[in-house]
């Protein structure tokens, strides 16, 4: 039998449906490969071999009994470790939750299990999803499979590396300011951040509640769409999740003749690596050659995206993270008084980036600073949303780079602001709530590059259409990191 590694989820699904292999064989191949390669990459914090094989056997039984199964049945998937899976450790890559075991499963996990997807393990991340490199994890950094001396991106670096290294063909991450799209770009994958509210956040550890969305990693747009079909949709347990109407689903179309694609001038100014820019411009020309019409647009307030984000996120995080008091769960350190116990538990439990952002948020929300910082950031956010609305009067989809550079060396950047600047192109979509997707489009300095598409709210179908058109006519997504680690 040919190797079952380095295949897409759709390819594996077809093999299983045609009875050319079993779900058990697929699971065994990926689990063995994960065990062999994880020492070099540290993509997975834990591999759940026994559970995965039991689940795979259950899928095989159902298939033998002639049951109709989801396209994801038997497909391995890695899960970012800020998503709760009942009975699994849920650490958020933090000392604060080092020994914590999830009491219940996230809605997306229930939906994946019902589809027959095989959860293979917990993926590494920047601590509590705060970061762009996967270096702040309490359990050590993850390495990029394309070059193990480089970062995979973050915060969903483990999820990205797991798919790039073929530990699983798909994975889940979370995206608050680019934490799915940026690692997708740096690891040569398709990474989707859905419209805010498209996927239930129940069971996702909250970072910034108005920005967080669960997102997907895969090699292809088709796999992304199939995975989203399983996890998306309203959930009574998440009041911000939305009912999806029929118009928001993709019919598989990929003809983009006449589609208007906007190129914001703010995304093509200073700050982008010239080699990356060359690749991105080539990708835009490819879309034009497929019949799309390129239109210059402007998102004037996008230049303030980083400042806006790094006021709103810390503010919301400081509020959300009050729950980590060391009393009901998590790391506990006793002090002379209750307040001292809080301070010691949190001081010991949190890493430096987490503490920094909590204090920034505390400042922004304090009286005297509230209006000038947090109030102002909310107003700029409103303006950014209006920028998108106006741009989408002229175009159907917005196009630009995902990341200003390719993956950099581990340890190369330690100054917080230089790290924050990595999110410059991804943040606007989170602030406005729009869906956005990174698609692999080439290489610079032998490292992957991705372009980003941003759509109107709930128009993921247009993103899929454009992405599929691109992947039908190019082979960048067929490259993989085999032999590179």
């Amino acid at each position, binding site marked *: 039998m040919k190797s079952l590694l380095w295949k897409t989820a759709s390819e594996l699904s077809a093999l299983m449906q045609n009875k050319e292999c079993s779900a058990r064989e697929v699971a065994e191949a990926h689990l063995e490969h994960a065990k062999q390669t994880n020492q070099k990459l540290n993509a997975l914090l834990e591999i759940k071999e026994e559970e995965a094989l039991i689940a795979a056997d259950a899928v095989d039984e159902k298939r033998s009994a002639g049951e109709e199964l989801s396209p994801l049945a038997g497909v391995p998937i890695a899960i970012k470790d800020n998503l709760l899976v009942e009975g699994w450790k849920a650490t958020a890559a933090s000392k604060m939750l080092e020994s914590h075991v999830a009491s219940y499963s996230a809605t997306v996990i229930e939906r994946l299990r019902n589809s027959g997807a095989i959860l293979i393990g917990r993926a590494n991340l920047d601590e509590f999803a705060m970061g762009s490199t996967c270096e702040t994890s309490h359990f050590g950094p993850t390495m990029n499979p394309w070059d193990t001396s480089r970062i995979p991106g973050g915060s969903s670096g483990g999820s990205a590396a797991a798919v790039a290294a073929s530990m699983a063909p798909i994975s889940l991450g979370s995206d608050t300011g680019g934490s799915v799209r940026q690692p997708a770009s740096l690891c040569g994958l398709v990474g989707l951040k859905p419209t805010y509210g498209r996927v239930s956040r129940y069971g996702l550890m909250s970072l910034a509640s108005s920005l967080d969305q669960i997102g997907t990693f895969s090699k292809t747009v088709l796999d992304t769409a199939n995975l989203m079909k399983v996890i998306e949709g309203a959930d009574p347990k998440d*009041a911000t999740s939305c009912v999806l109407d029929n118009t928001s689903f993709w019919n598989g179309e990929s003809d983009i003749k006449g589609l208007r694609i906007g190129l914001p001038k703010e995304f093509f100014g200073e700050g982008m690596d010239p080699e990356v820019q060359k690749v991105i411009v080539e990708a835009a020309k490819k879309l034009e050659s497929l019949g799309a019409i390129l239109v210059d647009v402007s998102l004037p307030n996008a230049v303030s995206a980083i400042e806006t984000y790094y006021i709103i996120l810390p503010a919301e995080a400081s509020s959300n993270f009050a729950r980590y008091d060391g009393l009901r769960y998590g790391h506990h350190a006793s002090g002379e*008084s209750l307040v001292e116990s809080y301070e010691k538990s949190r001081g010991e439990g949190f890493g430096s980036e987490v503490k920094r952002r909590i204090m920034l948020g505390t400042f922004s929300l304090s009286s005297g600073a509230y209006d000038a910082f947090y109030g102002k950031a909310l107003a700029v956010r409103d303006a950014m949303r209006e920028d998108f609305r106006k741009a989408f009067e002229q175009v159907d989809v917005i196009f630009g780079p995902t990341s200003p550079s390719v993956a950099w060396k581990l340890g190369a950047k330690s100054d917080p602001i230089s790290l924050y600047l990595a999110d410059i192109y991804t943040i606007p979509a*989170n602030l406005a709530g729009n869906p956005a997707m990174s698609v692999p489009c080439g290489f610079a300095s032998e490292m992957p590059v991705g372009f980003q598409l941003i759509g109107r709210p709930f128009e993921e179908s247009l993103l899929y259409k454009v992405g599929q058109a691109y992947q039908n006519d190019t082979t960048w997504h067929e490259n993989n990191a085999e032999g590179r680690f």
Partner: protein
Amino acid sequence: MENTQENTAHLARLARLSLTDEELALYTTQIADILTYVSKLQEVETAEPSKWTDSLGTPVSRRVDEQDSCSSEVRRNLIDAFPSKEGDLLSVQAVFTNRV
């Protein structure tokens, strides 16, 4: 933007975070730099922010504030996670008195 170690210590206290002396010094500088950077936002002309809207700008939906329950299994899992307990009760230090 200016920042002092006293300010940072005050923020840490508000945020219920203990810091080492090294952290205090480091964060004082870093927070000053970050606040200087994000303060650029004050030069941007804007209208009053909308209130009570979600990320997409639609009014926030609210639901009736009614009690919900969880399964006995989830309840057990939650209680088992208590760092300190007496029976099924969470044990904590008193709020207003020092520990004896």
